């Protein structure tokens, strides 16, 4: 029997291949590094990630190219997502360098696990088939479970890891079950193949099958767990609070970016003909997430937990953009590009902002003092105007106030919703974001308007140059994206080329 050798263009997967080489190199190099010099692994990973970022960027503008028998696609969307994820990774590594020493988890494996998670994300961004997407998702998830429980001596972190693992595994199961049902109905796992079958002669019948509805519900629920949409969010506050702060930051931006990109790819490419069904489900999740995330955040006393809840709300805003992409004309769905580009831009803005906000928590963290609570920031803005100003800018961006990245991002998300006449979604979203201003500014209030109690330890910020450099870059980026977003909006626009 002759062997058919598939035509595989490895160059398209250059980023992933490079990343695997980097991972191996870090693993091996780690074994020959003494305990004190583990930060070198971080620096090594950082430079690798920077190089890979440029490798990923070189794929821009090459049109839609698939390889690995259609399992893998490289288009502008995946390039955009990959570059943002790699940027977030670079920032996270720099945030971690000092923090890992303070929290005593400065192992080479930490960076290796981050890189593994990134590998999964990159595969997800390029996953053109439910199977390759799922592989990426699992690689990412399993690495994240480990990362969340990385402060092994801290019971909270262990608990967080276990919770995240159990819920994550459950979600993966749901998702896989949904994928299996879709495969059973359509006979393929390829996104394009599914769309073809659903749009074909029997498409209407398959689309109306109750099993299809079940499959969609399962897939939506699976995504819902992974992205922590209300009511699938219950693991998130514990996991985000217990995890090392750098990992919380990383998960809230990079995991979200990859999963949202995959969600858009799966729903927009594979299931446009049943858009009415999933769009309604997503509509509900978006509303619940925005409202509940923001209201639950008000009650928090832990700043980290508050940011965790706020990330639920932000996931809701992002989902609003996804929902708002679909417009229904005469029962047929039309995807309008504004929604997708708004989602991408928002995720970019959120990446910069949220990494910064968590970076501020790391800035305050010392061996004997975590600084995770709102109380710990009492009076900090008075004594340290620069740090206060930086935090203020991040909060402005999170609350969606000008002149910051978050404002432009929200403007276009809400704009997309209004353009496609999702008025209620826009109004609910914008009112809940007004609510969010309350709890963000409560922290500003504590920082600037209250004086530090005698019993509280003196504020002593970390002096790690890497951390300070990252924070400065993130502040500048938050303002830059808010004032001169033009180029990045064009990039977000351009990343839809060939997608929808």
């Amino acid at each position: 029997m002759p062997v058919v050798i598939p035509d595989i263009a490895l160059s398209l997967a250059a980023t992933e291949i490079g990343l695997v080489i980097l991972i191996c190199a870090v693993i091996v190099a780690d074994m020959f590094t003494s305990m004190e010099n583990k930060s070198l692994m971080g620096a090594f990973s950082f430079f690798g990630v920077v190089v890979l970022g440029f490798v990923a960027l070189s794929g821009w503008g090459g049109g839609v190219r698939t390889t690995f028998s259609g399992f893998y696609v490289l288009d502008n969307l995946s390039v955009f997502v990959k570059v943002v994820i790699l940027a977030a990774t670079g920032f996270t590594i720099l945030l971690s360098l000092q923090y890992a020493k303070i929290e005593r988890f400065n192992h080479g494996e930490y960076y290796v696990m981050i890189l593994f998670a990134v590998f999964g994300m990159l595969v997800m961004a390029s996953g053109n088939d439910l199977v390759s997407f799922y592989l990426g998702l699992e690689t990412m998830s399993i690495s994240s479970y480990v990362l969340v429980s990385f402060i092994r001596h801290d019971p909270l972190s262990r608990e967080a890891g276990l919770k995240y693992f159990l819920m994550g595994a459950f979600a993966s199961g749901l998702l896989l079950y949904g994928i299996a049902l879709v495969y059973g109905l359509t006979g393929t796992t390829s996104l394009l193949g599914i769309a073809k079958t659903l749009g074909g002669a029997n498409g209407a019948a398959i689309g109306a099958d109750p099993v299809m509805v079940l499959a969609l519900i399962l897939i939506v629920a699976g995504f819902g767990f992974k992205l922590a949409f209300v009511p699938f969010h219950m693991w998130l506050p514990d996991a985000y609070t217990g995890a090392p702060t750098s990992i919380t930051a990383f998960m809230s931006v990079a995991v979200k970016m990859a999963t949202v990109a995959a969600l858009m790819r799966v729903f927009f490419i594979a299931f446009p003909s049943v858009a009415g069904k999933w769009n309604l489900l997503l509509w509900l999740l978006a509303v619940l997430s925005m409202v509940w995330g923001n209201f639950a955040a008000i009650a928090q006393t832990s700043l980290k937990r508050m940011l965790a809840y706020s990330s639920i709300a932000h996931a809701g805003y992002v989902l609003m953009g996804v929902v708002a992409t679909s417009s229904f004309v005469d029962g047929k769905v039309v995807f309008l590009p504004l929604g997708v580009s708004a989602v991408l831009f928002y995720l970019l803005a959120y990446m910069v902002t949220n990494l910064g906000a968590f970076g501020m928590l790391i800035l305050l963290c010392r061996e004997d003092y975590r600084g995770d609570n709102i109380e710990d920031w009492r009076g900090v803005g008075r004594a340290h105007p620069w740090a206060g100003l930086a935090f203020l800018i991040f909060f402005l961006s999170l609350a969606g106030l000008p002149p910051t990245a978050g404002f432009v991002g929200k403007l276009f998300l809400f704009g997309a919703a209004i353009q496609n006449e999702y008025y209620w979604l826009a109004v609910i979203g914008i009112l809940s974001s007004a609510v969010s201003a309350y709890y963000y500014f409560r922290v500003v209030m504590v920082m600037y308007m209250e004086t530090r109690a005698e019993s509280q330890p003196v504020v002593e910020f970390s002096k790690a140059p890497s951390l300070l450099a990252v924070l400065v870059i993130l502040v500048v980026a938050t303002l830059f994206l808010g004032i001169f977003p033009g180029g990045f909006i064009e990039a977000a626009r351009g990343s839809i080329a060939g997608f929808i």
Partner: protein
Amino acid sequence: MPQEYLPILILLALATGFAVVNLGVSFFFGCRRPTAEKDTAYECGIVPETNARGRFSVKFFLVAMLFIVFDVETIFLFPWAVVFRELGGFGLAAMTPFMLLLIASLIYEWKRGALEWD
């Protein structure tokens, strides 16, 4: 199509029936004269010394995991070896990274001391 599954159904019924019938017969008709000796746990005739739910050393799991890793490697390598000639350069290109990955992890295990019992 459902007819094709009929044999499985029959087998299922037979298996369940066999178990139920045997247990039921001995439950209803067997005579019971329990003694202390009869109530002890049966371990191939050897008198048990400790609780069966003792903990294994984590090292056993490490070895088991290593075994699985290299087992999978073998499973992958055998078919590759069979069609090695036909695959040619492509096969080599596909297998080399795989081997490199394994080598990297082997180095990791070695240096971390996973291969040493103590």
